[in-house]
């Protein structure tokens, strides 16, 4: 058992990770994701952070309160093989399903010692989405929760690696709710499997902002 840099050694655990813990957690997370999430893009490690790009979030304008569903690769291929998709030609009266594309990066914050989700979104024609447009596409309660709860909120900042403005979910509350998440499962923090579970638990929360689901199979330990 790995004890040296293991978060299981910090007791009581404060919800944070060292950057080397994050490196290991990120690789474990992306491996599991790839195994159980075959119909969506994989997470790739890109010189310091995890990247998942061109995720299509497919939301019916009529069922705003439902979680946005991920369209499968097959569906996406079908769409791509059809006639060129002219977003402008679909009228608002029809069951217009907006397809927005998201890029997600998971970057370690050395100051908060937790992962941070950076994201940007764009229309199917490549036009970047403003935050107000992004918020319109989020599942029902997300926007309200983001403004009222202190577990996170959206800010715009320069991406620490790419030097371009991206949106991010602010990490100030992360260690608190990570502590809470792990509090009912003491064995997870004391036997060192925190690293293995950390990003799955973390993503189960932040993914909900965008209506994303973690497949339950990912939780069954390897």
């Amino acid at each position, binding site marked *: 058992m790995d004890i040296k840099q293991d978060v299981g050694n910090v007791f009581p655990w404060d919800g944070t990770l060292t950057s080397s813990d994050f490196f290991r957690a990120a690789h474990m997370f992306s491996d599991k994701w790839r195994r159980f999430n075959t119909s969506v893009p994989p997470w790739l490690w890109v010189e310091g952070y995890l990247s998942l790009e061109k995720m299509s979030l497919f939301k019916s304008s009529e069922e705003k309160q*439902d*979680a946005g569903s991920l369209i499968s690769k097959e569906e996406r291929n079908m769409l791509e093989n059809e006639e060129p998709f002219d977003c402008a030609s679909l009228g608002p009266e029809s069951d217009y399903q907006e397809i927005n594309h998201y890029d997600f990066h998971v970057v370690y914050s050395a100051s908060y010692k937790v992962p941070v989700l950076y994201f940007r979104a764009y229309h199917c024609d490549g036009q970047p989405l403003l935050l107000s447009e992004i918020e319109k596409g989020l*599942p029902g*309660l997300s926007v*309200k*929760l983001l403004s*009222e*709860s*202190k*577990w996170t909120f959206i800010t715009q900042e320069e991406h620490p690696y790419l030097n371009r403005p991206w949106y991010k979910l602010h990490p100030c*509350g992360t260690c*608190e*709710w990570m502590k*809470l*998440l*792990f*509090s*009912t*499962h003491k064995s*997870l923090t004391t036997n060192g499997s925190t690293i293995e*579970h950390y990003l*799955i*638990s973390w993503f*189960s*929360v932040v*993914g*909900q902002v965008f*209506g*994303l*689901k*973690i497949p*339950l199979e990912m*939780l*069954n330990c390897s």
Partner: protein
Amino acid sequence: MATDSPGSVRKVVVLLRATGDAPILKQAKFKIAGTDKFAKVIDFLRRQLHRDTLFVYVNSAFSPNPDESVIDLYKNFGIDGKLVVNYACSMAWG
């Protein structure tokens, strides 16, 4: 045990557990149809506690998506015949 009467919808026993400074519910245990979504449990909690900003999670350090069906959650996280759903309130500003 999740009851399994023939011809009827399988129900799941849910136990709501207050954590942190969240108020404890008088009625914390109830049965819900397995086919219902987790959103129904969350909405119930919100109405009972008169709060929208709840942090809801289950025992394996996991916060289920509201779109998950209760029976799937019970199969993955159920212990001793029930699904324990933890909730905390201390996530609100001010």
